[in-house]
């Protein structure tokens, strides 16, 4: 019994569960089996209390303490709503089978769980009773997932459906079962990823599973067994969708789509975002391959968005040379500078007498504020939002709050607002003293003319800021956003910047320390770059002295990893206090420390034995 994790997206994991001879893709559905209602032949994994042997990989649940034929038996698991002391007495009295651990859903009992034991399959008891208390459910599951070994498998019985599977997975659940498929079928109800529909409400069967196809999509032809077959397929198919989304790094989008159909599932997602943001953020990758779609209300609070906002307020500082702030609207095309509208604004700016005394700040949703030089970092370089020209209340509040906090930490002599009237209304209470240059739309000739004029008048008053100075500041800003200010300072001190915006290189003398690379939108360090940073805490992974680094760094070799490391981060590998490699983290720092298997860092550069001597 062993789980090999192959991809991660937030707390969700896609992996291969080795069970006996079988390799089972996770997350997956455990199909309940009995002689009367056999599990489907396509089931990856079957669970049963019966002893007959089955072709599918099968988990056999031992009889309980109350069975008249007791050997071997499960311990007595009390229902959820009995005192923790009672649960505890029984858990201590009857040690559990190390392969199949039962977890009563009481937070007080979490410290009695053997957190370091490799118990690979944890089953939550009284799951439905817990599920109905959404706040308690979310807080228990997040705590449990943080308590358990990352490679242990979490099984949430009885409550999973095609609608909530995605969000349950997003909380770190690996296995659900087919209980709700059977119950719905008994109640003549068909499951779809968009919800459950009673048979009598269907005029046709909107499905191509074997049962619906054989019935020629005619609901009146379906028997109980057909409905059950349909439901087992619906569960299976959704598990496939979820696994695909995890591998693509688009699970969050998938979750937001699925929970729409169910207020309770939506509540779970909102509670995760609002009450447990750190749980989500820790395991959410820094970089992504696919657009971050901000098409729902929940997207305003997703971990990538919050992380970006937090870093703008706490890691980022405006370029010191900038005296004038220019507020601009966002553009659909990312990065913005490649868009038509932004090339118009930039033309006005670059033709002004002193363009680098101006700092551009883009006002947008859901990110709030994007400084020009961070337009290339994720998620600013890949988010996509529904643009209607209408801003909802929450978006307004987010923009106003961020702008207020940003301006408290970053001061300018002048602020120019080149935003359409609706956005002007949002920012003007925060910056009543600003100069507005947008007359109708930001790209109209009249507006651009006024912008050019204002920039001309204001920038001319300041001593000229050189493009080189600003280039240094911009790369430094990316470094601070990515690594923290102390690391950025260590990296940029005594360095020079070469190359065209935005993909610039950092040199110290003739040594390259790092460069901003196109698909990542972040700095990639060289060994020398890492050496320049290594004294500052934050992004180092220490490997064991006796670990011979050949390819990647694997989790068992990791001795220490900084807790702020996220999947996709550039990290340096230390061995005996010296940098021996740089690479990209494939696990979060906390997971590297706790995992026993799997790649932790994909190494980009490593010192040759000669360099090490």
């Amino acid at each position, binding site marked *: 019994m062993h789980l090999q994790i192959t991809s991660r997206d937030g707390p969700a994991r896609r992996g291969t569960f080795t069970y006996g001879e079988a390799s089972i893709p996770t997350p997956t559905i455990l199909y309940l089996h009995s002689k009367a209602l056999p599990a489907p032949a396509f089931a990856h994994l079957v669970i049963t209390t019966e002893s007959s042997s089955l072709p599918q990989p099968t988990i056999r649940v031992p009889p309980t303490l*109350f069975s008249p034929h007791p050997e071997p038996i499960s311990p007595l698991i009390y229902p959820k709503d009995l005192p923790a002391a009672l649960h505890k007495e029984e858990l201590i009295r009857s040690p559990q089978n190390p392969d199949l651990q039962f977890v009563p859903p009481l937070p007080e009992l979490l410290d009695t769980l053997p957190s370091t034991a490799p118990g690979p399959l944890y089953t939550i008891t009284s799951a439905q009773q817990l599920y109905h208390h959404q706040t308690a459910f979310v807080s228990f599951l997040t705590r449990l997932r943080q308590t358990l070994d990352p490679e242990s498998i979490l099984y949430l019985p009885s409550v999973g459906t095609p609608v909530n599977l995605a969000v349950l997975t997003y909380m770190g659940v690996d296995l659900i079962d087919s209980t709700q498929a059977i*119950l719905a079928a008994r109640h003549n109800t068909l499951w779809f990823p968009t919800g459950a529909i009673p048979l009598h409400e269907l005029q046709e069967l909107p499905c191509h599973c074997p049962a619906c196809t054989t019935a020629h999509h005619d609901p009146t032809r379906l028997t109980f067994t057909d409905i059950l077959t349909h439901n087992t397929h619906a569960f299976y198919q959704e598990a496939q969708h979820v696994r695909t989304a995890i591998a693509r790094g688009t699970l969050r989008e998938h979750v937001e789509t699925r929970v729409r159909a169910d207020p309770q599932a939506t509540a779970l997602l909102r509670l995760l975002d609002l009450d447990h943001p750190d749980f989500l953020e820790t395991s959410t990758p820094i970089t992504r391959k696919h657009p971050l779609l901000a098409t729902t209300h929940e997207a305003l609070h997703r971990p990538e968005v919050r992380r970006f906002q937090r870093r703008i307020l706490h890691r980022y500082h405006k370029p010191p040379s900038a005296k004038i702030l220019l507020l601009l609207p966002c553009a659909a095309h990312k990065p913005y500078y490649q868009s038509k509208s932004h090339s118009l604004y930039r033309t006005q700016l670059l033709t002004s007498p002193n363009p680098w005394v101006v700092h551009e700040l883009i006002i947008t949703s859901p990110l709030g504020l994007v400084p020009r030089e961070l337009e290339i970092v994720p998620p600013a370089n890949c988010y996509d939002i529904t643009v209607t020209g209408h801003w909802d209340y929450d978006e307004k509040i987010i923009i106003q709050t961020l702008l207020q906090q940003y301006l408290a930490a970053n001061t300018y002599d002048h602020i120019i607002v080149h935003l359409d009237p609706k956005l002007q209304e949002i920012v003007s209470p925060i910056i009543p003293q600003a100069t507005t240059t947008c007359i109708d739309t930001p790209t109209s000739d009249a507006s651009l003319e006024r912008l050019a004029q204002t920039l001309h008048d204001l920038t001319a008053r300041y001593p000229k800021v050189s493009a080189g100075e600003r280039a240094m500041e911009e790369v430094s800003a990316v470094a601070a956003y990515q690594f923290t200010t102390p690391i950025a300072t260590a990296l940029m001190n005594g360095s020079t910047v070469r190359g065209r915006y935005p993909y610039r290189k950092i040199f110290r003398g003739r040594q390259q320390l790092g460069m901003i690379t196109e698909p990542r939108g972040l700095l990639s360090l060289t060994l020398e770059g890492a050496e320049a940073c290594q004294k500052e805490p934050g992004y180092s992974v220490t490997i064991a002295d006796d670990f011979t680094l050949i390819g990647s760094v694997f989790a068992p070799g990791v001795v220490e990893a900084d807790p702020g490391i996220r999947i996709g981060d550039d990290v340096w590998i230390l061995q005996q206090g010296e940098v021996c490699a740089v690479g990209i983290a494939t696990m979060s720092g906390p997971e590297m420390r706790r995992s026993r298997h799997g790649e932790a860092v994909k190494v980009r550069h490593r010192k040759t034995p000669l360099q090490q001597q």
Partner: protein
Amino acid sequence: MSELQELCRTFSSKASHTRVSTTRPVRCWTEKDRLDGSVVDAFVVIFATRGCSWAQRSGCTMCGYGNDSAGTAVSAADLEQQLQTALRDYHGEPLVKIFNSGSFLDEDEIPLPARKALLSAFTNATKISVESRPEYVTEKTLMHIQEILGARQFEIGIGLETANDVVRDKAINKGFSFAQYKTAASLLKKHRVSVKTYVLVKPPFLTEHEALEDTLETIRAVAPMTDIISLNPVNVQRHTLVEHLWHRDEYRPPWLWTLVDALHHGHQLFSGHLKCDVVAGGSQRGPHNCGSCDHDVLTAISDFSLHQDPSVFTPLSCSCREQWRDQCAYENLTYGSVVDWSRWKA
């Protein structure tokens, strides 16, 4: 005390005694029962006493009889007054069942003078039946009763609940062992006292399937030692641990199909009188099915209990029987999650 015993104490101590008078019986009524192979009228009276000694120390997980007890000592004089009230409703029924929501043989509940008065009062009765925990079944007590009753038939019902000591200890918290029951039963046999064994159907923490298995195992185990087996399916009584769980969707009283199965199979395991008294049948607090078949199934159960003819079960059918079968097959795999397969909402 174990944690479970402590917990049961917190529930039994909440029992409300306010509606119980020390001078009037709690209830009395007439019902049909079986006596010497034929169906007769039986007179049932529940006397108010201070209550079960075990309930005062801890109590059973399902038992709310404390609500039918006075909570304070009830004197012999009080009991004689209760008897006079009860006798007004007694019309010479041949079978008299004297209950007291505890142990008739416990002198703290029924003082010796009252025991004598209660047992001698029903002069027309062919058979007197009482109930007691096994620890009160002693040689001395049985001799005393024989002195009072002479050759009249006497029966003691013992709430064994299950032959499985683990279930009795962990799920019922009964406070005595199967061995104690066996000692009491053989003593009763020796004194030619008829043995009635109460078997609890579906204690808390057991699944529907486990409950059925436990009931059948118990019938098998006690068959050689008892004259009557009375199945007692749990109903949700006030101020009990079972009620606490039931309120939180963590307990469902047994399906009537479980009782049908237990009686049907139990009949083949036991040649004596096998019966089942369903309290609160068809209601959410009592044993129930889907609601549409409950009446027919309950009628069949009471028919069987009187006439011992299992063919009464043959015509029963309902679509909810499939839900019950699902529950028997799968409830063990939900670890307490789904306790009622007849209730479902998407």
